[in-house]
């Protein structure tokens, strides 16, 4: 479980951003989390209230967008979802692929009031 430490880092980044952009109130924070990253959305939601307590984001809503773990087959160039296809190309059966997305952990945007 490392979500709390990671979210505290996110809060710091947002506070810096808010100060630079003279934002005093944030309605919503939008995070993008890749489905192959080691950050688990459910745990982020669970520890979010503790991480934002007493900060600028105390009353800010959290929204999480999940990014798919997609890859491209080296053999036939088919793009497919790694988890759904069990790490195997659904067209040619190859296990050789290059990862295109899914490990991200991004602060996408904030909705300021």
């Amino acid at each position, binding site marked *: 479980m490392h979500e709390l430490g990671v979210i505290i880092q996110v809060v710091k980044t947002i506070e810096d951003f808010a100060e630079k952009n003279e934002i005093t109130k944030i309605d919503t924070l939008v995070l993008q989390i890749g489905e192959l990253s080691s950050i688990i959305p459910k745990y982020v939601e669970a520890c979010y209230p503790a991480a934002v307590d007493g900060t600028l984001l105390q009353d800010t809503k959290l929204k999480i967008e999940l990014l798919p773990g997609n890859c491209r087959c080296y053999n036939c160039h088919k793009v497919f979802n790694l988890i759904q296809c069990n790490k195997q190309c659904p067209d040619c059966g190859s296990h050789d692929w290059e990862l295109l997305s899914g490990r991200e952990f991004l*602060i996408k945007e*904030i*909705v300021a009031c």
Partner: protein
Amino acid sequence: MKTFKVLEIKESVFEDNNRQADLLRDELKKRKTFLLNLMSSPGSGKTTTVLRTIEALKSDMTIGVMEADIDSDVDAHAVSETGTKVIQLHTGGMCHLDADMTKQGLLGLGTENIDFVILENVGNLVCPAEFDTGASKNAMILSVPEGDDKPLKYPLMFSMVDVLLINKIDVIDYFDFDLEAVKARAQKLNPNIKIIPISARTGEGIDEWADWIRTEVKNWKGQ
């Protein structure tokens, strides 16, 4: 009616750590201190390997050790008995170290005149692989009792390290551990990986490991 404004940030949290890690690496390069990030599961023999490494290298260079654990200071005690400069880092429940924590640890340790710092990361094969600590090189230990399927289960860790030490090689006859299979699995993930079978208990393979460190420290210092 309230007006809402959407401000795009598009900042990767991992990238922020990567930036800090790069800054730390640059600083270490300037100070001519080589930092090795040593990772493994709990119980793989990290501390015993660190002790062996110190023994093999202490006449050639000044060594510092940072022991990262969730709790306790037993590892730091064991290392301090060798007379080596050591600091215990408590992560307070965090399962990995990031670049900022590593930097704080280095400040606490003091790197002046230290050639080689070993960062003994938290025993975990998962998240330490995702957070760049700012180390010059990364190494991991896989011990024989853990099994030869670990590269399949923790591919990211095996794909990002420079060296794989296969520890407890002295007891390989008692386990169903296929050394060649591990080598093949690790090399498939990471064609440039250097694999050294060792026994921190008997000292087997430690010479080759120490030689690798000597060369890397020299290269880092630009000698």
